[in-house]
């Protein structure tokens, strides 16, 4: 290791920074978060660190954030559309038809609203079977109609989840091309890229959730990556903490913001686990 490494965790109130130098020197500091402009918290933390450290070379920046998690919890969603296979418009509403709790819970439990309102779930003509074979070709007219509705509906982000796309993503890719041709700036989330696994409800919910996070979290992470490199040098690598515990390059995280939804909490768990090991607790 020849440069400093910075770890920055942003919560809703404070942003914490820990820096480790090539010689083992350490620095920890805290600045306020700025919810109205979430990039300011971690950037202010970087400025505060450089003020302490002077003109040092920074090798890595790792960032944990709760921006996506807070947007999910507060249901601050942009206008979103979801394109699905004809016959499967209600999959999100149906979910797995389960009710949390025991007998009697069904009478009081209210199924929460879905991330995409039903009027913005658009069916298209197409069908791929379980082996990935096309049994009904993509209906160009229905795709054009979907693109037109989205283009004229003040939609900010779109998701595409077609049946069996984990086996054959070509119909999803063709729909994405049609959307990009008309709306080059619109963020698109394809289920065959976000979570190419079978079981349509889970894949659709994951893809749609990624779509609603993309405008806010995607923009924020892209800005943070660009500003951090502008300040620290283009050789500095910028990573974002993922929900699963590892880190991912900031531009990749900006495309798949769902994977960093539990970014901040995951960093806390990893840190506590390490502390517990160092304190002599045997079970990690």
């Amino acid at each position, binding site marked *: 290791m020849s440069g400093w490494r910075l770890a920055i965790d942003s919560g809703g109130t404070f942003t914490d920074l820990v820096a480790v130098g090539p010689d083992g020197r350490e620095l920890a500091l805290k600045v306020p978060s700025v919810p109205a402009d979430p990039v300011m918290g971690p950037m202010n933390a970087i400025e505060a660190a450089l003020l302490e450290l002077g003109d040092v070379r920074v090798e890595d920046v790792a960032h944990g954030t709760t921006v996506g998690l807070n947007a999910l919890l507060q249901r601050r969603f942009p206008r979103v559309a979801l394109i699905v296979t004809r*016959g*499967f*418009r*209600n*999959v999100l*509403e*149906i*979910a*797995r*038809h*389960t*009710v949390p*709790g*025991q*007998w*009697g*819970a*069904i*009478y*009081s*439990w*209210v*199924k929460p609203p879905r991330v995409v*309102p*039903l*009027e913005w779930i658009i069916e298209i003509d197409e069908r791929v*079977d*379980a082996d990935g074979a096309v049994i009904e070709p993509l209906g160009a007219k229905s795709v054009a109609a979907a693109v037109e509705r989205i283009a004229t509906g003040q939609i900010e982000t779109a998701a595409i989840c077609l*049946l*069996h796309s984990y086996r054959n993503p070509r119909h999803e890719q063709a729909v994405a091309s049609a959307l990009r041709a008309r709306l080059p700036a619109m963020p698109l989330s394809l289920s065959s890229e976000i979570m190419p696994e*079978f*079981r*349509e*409800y*889970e894949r659709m919910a994951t893809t749609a959730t990624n779509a609603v996070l993309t405008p806010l979290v995607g923009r924020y992470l892209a800005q943070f990556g660009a500003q951090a490199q502008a300040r620290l040098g283009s050789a500095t690598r910028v990573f974002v903490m993922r929900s699963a515990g590892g880190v991912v390059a900031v531009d990749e995280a900006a495309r798949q913001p769902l994977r960093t939804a539990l970014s901040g909490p995951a960093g806390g768990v990893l840190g506590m686990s390490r502390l517990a090991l160092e304190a002599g607790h045997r079970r990690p």
Partner: protein
Amino acid sequence: MTKSADRLLFDFTGTEEQVHGSINFPADARFYARALLSTFKALQPELLVNDGVLEVVEVRVPEGTVLNPRFPAACSYRHYPLIRCFSVVLGALARALGGRVPQGADNMSGISFSGTRAGTDQTWYLSMPLGGGSCGRPAADGSDTVLMTPGRNVPSEYGETFYPLRIREFGLNPDSGGPGKHRGGLGYRILIEFLAPARVRVRTDRYYLEPTGVHGGMPGGTAEFIINPGTARERALPGKSDSGEVAAGDMLLVTSPGGGGWGDPLERDAALVALDVERGLVTTTAALLHYGVVPGDDDATAAQRRKLAGLRGPRPMFDRGERYREFVRRGVIQPRTSDL
């Protein structure tokens, strides 16, 4: 249901004698005390139901009835009378509390298929548990496609990967939510194409009689199982049946029960009715006939609502639906209350 100072009595005297069919529920009074009290979560969602209820709840279930059969008795579909008991208790609470209580969810349903793998002697079997809508309630609409017992639905991608069938449609059944100030939840509407011969078994609640509407609400939709709908070979399977045989290429249309509505549908916010129409949950016909709403036209809506209110008179506490009234007219059912 009788409440005294410190006790609650549920008396099921008068319940039907046990039957040859498999809807007998073998259980004792202690079981029913705990099970029936779970319905009180409708009023108090945090209520913890444990053996403490035995000190305050007494249940009388005469031996030899469907709720307490003598050995031997067929029991494989025993959950249906139990779930109906929950709804009966909630109905009694509705009378006691002037209708201000959530109502039942008689929506347990399901389909299963079996056959032989092509070119082998290996059999296959797929069971698809289904729920339906829950009833509208004082604080909210009913929820769509929920089930009170454990058992998740079968993802279409799973079914198609491992079994010789194709799911053409896996959705909600429009207009199956009972009209009400708070609409009942919607049941399933599923269309399945068989790619190989199969035997079809179906079971459901609310096949003959509609889910009850409460406190002025109207009934929800019933379950249906129709083979090759809309063709010359169309035929319906009854609500509890294991006799369906289908060939490759046959289609099966399945609907599951909706929830009954709560409150007078003419009092439902017209904007919510219009949104239900936009979302494809309520048809324009039902919006006009049951809710008196013409989406986007306030004057026409006001006129239609005045007209319907005049035609129809005050709404009853329980609306068991047109099919129930037909059974009463034919003498199949002898009603015990004045709420027809």
